[in-house]
């Protein structure tokens, strides 16, 4: 199974304020978008980011060929345990996820 990052044009994660993280998966075309939308399961994504599934917000946006997830930040920005002030590193987890 290929890694998500090899199928799409970009996976981006960013802070959405200090308490939320948002992850955007940009697909190049509707075929890839459909494959990614079907292949990304909420339970898998929640587990990947270490958050409870009911806190995961998901937006499938066909007009942009984008699948977007938002989660409460795994660690609040800037706290002692935070390792990534801008939250960009979390994208790697999704980028390297193998999907059907």
């Amino acid at each position, binding site marked *: 199974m290929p890694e998500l990052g090899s199928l799409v044009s970009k996976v981006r994660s*960013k*802070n*959405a*304020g*200090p*308490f*939320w993280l*948002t992850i*955007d998966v*940009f697909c190049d075309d509707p075929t890839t978008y459909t494959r990614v939308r079907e292949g990304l399961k909420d339970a898998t994504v929640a587990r*990947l*980011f*270490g958050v409870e599934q009911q806190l995961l*917000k998901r*937006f499938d*946006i066909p*007009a*942009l060929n*984008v699948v*977007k997830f*938002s989660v*409460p*930040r*795994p660690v*609040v*920005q*800037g*706290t*002692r*345990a935070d*390792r*990534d*002030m*801008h939250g960009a*590193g*979390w994208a*790697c*987890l999704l980028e*390297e996820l193998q999907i059907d």
Partner: protein
Amino acid sequence: MTRVLVPAGALGLGYDREALERGVANHPDIIAIDGGSTDSGPSYLGRGVSKYSRASTKVEWRELMQARAKAGVPLVIGTAGTCGADAAVDWLFDITREIALEEGMKVKVATLKSGQPKERVKAALGGGRLHALPAAPDICEAVVDDCTNIVALAGVEQVAAAIATGADIVIAGRTTDTAIIAALPVVRGDHAGAAWHGAKVGECGALATTQPNSGVIQIDFDATGFTIEPMAADAAATPYTVSAHMLYENSDPFILHEPGGHLDVTRSDYEALDGRRVRVEGSKWVPGRYTVKLEGARIVGYQTVGLAVVRERRYVQHVREWAADIEAKVRDKIIARMGLAADAFNVEIRLIGMDATLGALENRHDVPVEVGILGILTCPTAEQAAEAGKILNPYLLHHPLTEDEPMPTFAFPFSPAEMQRGALYEFCLNHVMELDDPLSAFVLETHEVGHA
């Protein structure tokens, strides 16, 4: 119709100078630029300081003051000095005064301060007028008392009041990213949904175009929508770049909460007018209760960090157990020799090259060539953190994997290998505060600076 010129996503980031000239020549009604965000972390708000250098800020601000004088319109900056604390407003005001004197300009400056006295926030908390947003930390009066700075995010009402003073320059403390752009279109009666939506698209400058680094964009607001056009010759706005911008740093790509309501772009329609301009209509502004979001930061300890690099293959292969052993030994020694309680301090070693970015969520386990050893010590006082750093130092230099082997020595990149980080700040508010009068929680003043 209102024409807003946005020179860049933030003051200090730079922009295309020719594009700025083109924008000024197009007769904007106002020049608006953002000065900050929470994105660089709580230390800036906690200390009330800017992340960008004073020298860079002064160079760019001088150019914008010159552009303003040429255009003969107001120049507005929101979230001055990265964090928008009162001290950051004073900092930029000071720079403004220097430039005005140096340039022989006479300008009227309005300052809009967003700093919140603790008593006001505690009164709101006690009166049930403070409401937690999703994923907000628990707060109580003691948390509010601990804050070194609390700011409220101003909306269009407060920014518009500052513009209405007739000021040439408005230096605003913390505002929402959008308020400085939306303010003039809203008060002039342009379409409210378009005003907020165009402001959201424009708040990062040219990020919503094909040439993000060019900075400068122009947004025309009118009775039914807005039109965005980048000012750099080689940049283009497309329906994709404009609509995709709602994804950026937003947890919800269709709804944006602002003071006094929310923006809904679910039914927005994006149309290419030509190869570089996009027209947007159908955005909706939904009025609601008047609240302002609060941000606060407090000190939760002081830190010393130490850095060493392990290159020897056997140590790299066993680096986790080696680091865990150092953590345990340093912890014991801080308790035994400094007399700190076990729960009063924290010792953490992050392994750069292994999992320093993702921690427990990391799922790759390759063996690297070398590993950076970042020791982080957090103590109640700066003096204790410095002491703890000196306890860590010899372990980072010489700690053997087993007791019966020759003493190893690891690479220290400098002397000393430990650095005082100062205070560790945390964001401790993610709440909105109800206001009956939007202006009641903000301080607006005008000043004449420079000389003709």
